[in-house]
C-alpha cells in the first residue's frame, strides 16, 4: 500500500510539472530545457524557510511560487530577446546555473543539500498524496482556464505565427512573460511537496536530466493539450516502475521514445490533432508560410 502511495505522489508531481511545462512550451511555443530548476527553486525555498526560519510548511507554498515565478520572469525576459533555438540554450544554461548555485553555495547546504525536512504533524504520506493530487488538479484547472481565455488564444496564435499575432494587435511579449511566470510558478509550487516527500533537497536532483525527462513527458503525451501532458507524465512516470528490470537503460529508452515520437507522431500521443480519426480532414500542414 505504502508503495502505491509513494508512486502516486511522484506521479502527481510529474503531472503538475509536465502541465506547467506545457503552459510554456505547449501553449506558448517557447522551448524550455531547464524546467526542473524551477521545481528546485521551490523546493529549496521551502527547505530554507523551514530549517532556517522555522516557517510552517504550509506557508512555504506561496513563497515557493513567488521565488520560482520571479526567476521565471527573468528567463521569460530572455525569451523576448532571443530566437527559439537560442532560448533552448538559455533555459538550459539557467538550469545549470541554478544547480551550481545550490551545490556550491554553503548557505544552501552545499553538496550535502538540506536534509531533515519533514511534513507538519498530521500530514502523512496519504495526506501528502492528496495534497499533491490537489496541486495537479489545480494546475490542470489553471491550464483549462488558460486555454479558454484571451491569453490562451493569443498564446496559441503566437506559437503558430508570432508576426501575424503581433499584426493582430496582440502584445506578444506580455503573453510570453505570462506563460513563463505561470508555468514556472506552478512548477515552484510542487517544490514544498517534493521537499518533504524526499526529506532532503540537493542541487543535482534538479538538473538537466530531470528537465529533459519532463520535456520528454510533455512531447510524448502531446504538447499543447492537458490530456497529453497528463498522459505523458503518467505513462512515462510509471514506466520506470513497470520496467524496473531495464532501469540501467532508462535514458536510452527515453531518448529512443522521443525520437520515435518525432518521427511517427510529431504531435504526441494525445496532442492537438489526436482526437480526429484518420480520413477526416486533419493536419494538413499546407498553410503557406512563405518568408515575407
Amino acid at each position: 500500500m505504502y508503495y502505491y502511495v509513494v508512486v502516486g505522489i511522484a506521479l502527481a508531481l510529474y503531472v503538475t510539472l509536465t502541465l506547467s511545462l506545457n503552459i510554456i512550451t505547449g501553449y506558448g511555443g517557447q522551448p524550455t530545457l531547464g524546467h526542473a530548476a524551477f521545481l528546485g527553486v521551490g523546493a529549496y525555498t521551502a527547505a530554507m524557510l523551514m530549517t532556517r526560519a522555522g516557517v510552517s510548511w504550509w506557508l512555504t507554498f506561496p513563497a515557493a511560487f513567488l521565488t520560482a515565478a520571479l526567476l521565471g520572469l527573468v528567463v521569460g525576459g530572455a525569451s523576448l530577446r532571443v530566437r527559439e533555438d537560442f532560448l533552448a540554450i538559455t533555459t538550459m544554461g539557467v538550469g545549470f546555473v541554478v544547480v551550481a548555485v545550490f551545490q556550491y553555495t554553503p548557505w544552501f547546504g552545499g553538496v550535502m543539500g538540506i536534509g531533515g525536512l519533514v511534513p507538519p504533524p498530521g500530514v502523512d504520506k496519504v495526506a501528502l498524496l492528496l495534497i499533491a493530487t490537489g496541486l495537479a488538479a489545480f494546475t490542470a484547472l489553471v491550464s483549462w482556464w488558460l486555454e479558454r481565455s484571451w491569453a490562451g488564444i493569443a498564446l496559441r496564435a503566437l506559437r503558430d505565427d508570432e508576426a501575424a499575432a503581433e499584426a493582430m494587435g496582440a502584445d506578444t511579449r506580455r503573453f510570453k512573460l505570462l506563460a513563463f511566470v505561470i508555468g514556472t510558478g506552478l512548477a515552484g509550487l510542487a517544490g514544498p511537496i517534493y521537499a518533504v516527500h524526499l526529506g532532503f533537497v540537493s542541487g543535482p536532483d534538479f538538473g538537466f536530466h530531470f528537465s529533459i525527462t519532463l520535456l520528454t513527458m510533455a512531447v510524448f503525451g502531446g504538447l499543447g493539450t492537458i490530456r497529453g501532458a497528463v498522459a505523458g507524465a503518467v505513462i512515462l512516470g510509471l514506466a520506470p516502475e513497470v520496467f524496473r528490470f531495464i532501469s540501467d537503460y532508462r535514458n536510452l529508452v527515453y531518448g529512443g521514445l522521443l525520437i520515435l515520437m518525432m518521427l511517427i507522431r510529431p504531435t504526441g500521443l494525445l496532442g492537438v490533432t489526436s482526437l480526429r480519426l484518420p480520413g477526416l480532414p486533419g493536419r494538413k500542414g499546407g498553410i503557406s508560410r512563405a518568408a515575407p
Partner: protein
Amino acid sequence: MTTRHLLEVEGLTVHYGKAIAVENVSLAVHEGEWVSLIGANGAGKTTTLRAILGLVRPTAGRIRYRGQEITRLPAHARVELGIGYVPEGRRVFGDLTVEENLLMGAYRIRDRARIRRNLDRVYHLFPRLAERRQQLSRTLSGGEQQMLAIGRALMSEPELLLIDEVSMGLMPIAVSHAFGVIEDLHRQGMTILLVEQNARKALVRASRGYVLETGRIVLSGPASRLQQDPQVQQAYLGM
C-alpha cells in the same frame, strides 16, 4: 490636402542586414482611396507594407497616419489606430479554430458586444466561415483561408486595410472572389492599400497606383493611366 491624407510615407528606406530592400519610397493614401502597389517579385512591396504596419523597422523615413507620426510605434499600437493587415500567404493561425482566428483579429477590442457585432458582420460577408466556425483553420482550403485572413483583418474595425498578395497560391476562381470582396469593401468606404504581382487585377478597380522596381518607386499615377502606360503594359500586363 494634408487632412485628406490617411497615410503618408516619406523617404522610407529599409535594410535587411546590409541588403537594401526599399529605398527612399514615398507614397500617400487618401481617405476612401484604393491604392495599388505593383511590381515584380522582390521589388520591395511586402517590405513596404510591413514597415507601414510596424513589423520591420525602417532605417530612414517617416510614416504618418492621420497626420500623426507612427514611425516608432509598435505594430499592435498601429492596429489600434485603425490599420488592418491581410498578410501575404494568409498566415491564418492553423491550430486555432476559424472563430478563434477571428477573435484574434478583434484582439484590441475588449467590448464583447462590439466583437459579437463584428463577428456577425464577417459571417454575413463570408457565410462559408460561419459554417466552419469550429473547424481548425489549417483544414480550410486556400480560398477559405484567404476569406478568413480578410475577415480577421476586418474584426479590428480598420479604416485602412493593407492587403498583401491576395492572389498568391489561389485558384483563379478564389482570386476573383477575393477581389470581389475587396471591391465591395472599397465601395462601402474602406481605404485600401493593396500589394500585388498580378498588375491587371490590382489596377482595374484601383484609384491610383505605384510601380516598384528593386526597392524604388519608378512610376506612379492614376490607375487608368498606369494601365495605358506602355512600360507597365510591357513589363506587368504582358502586352
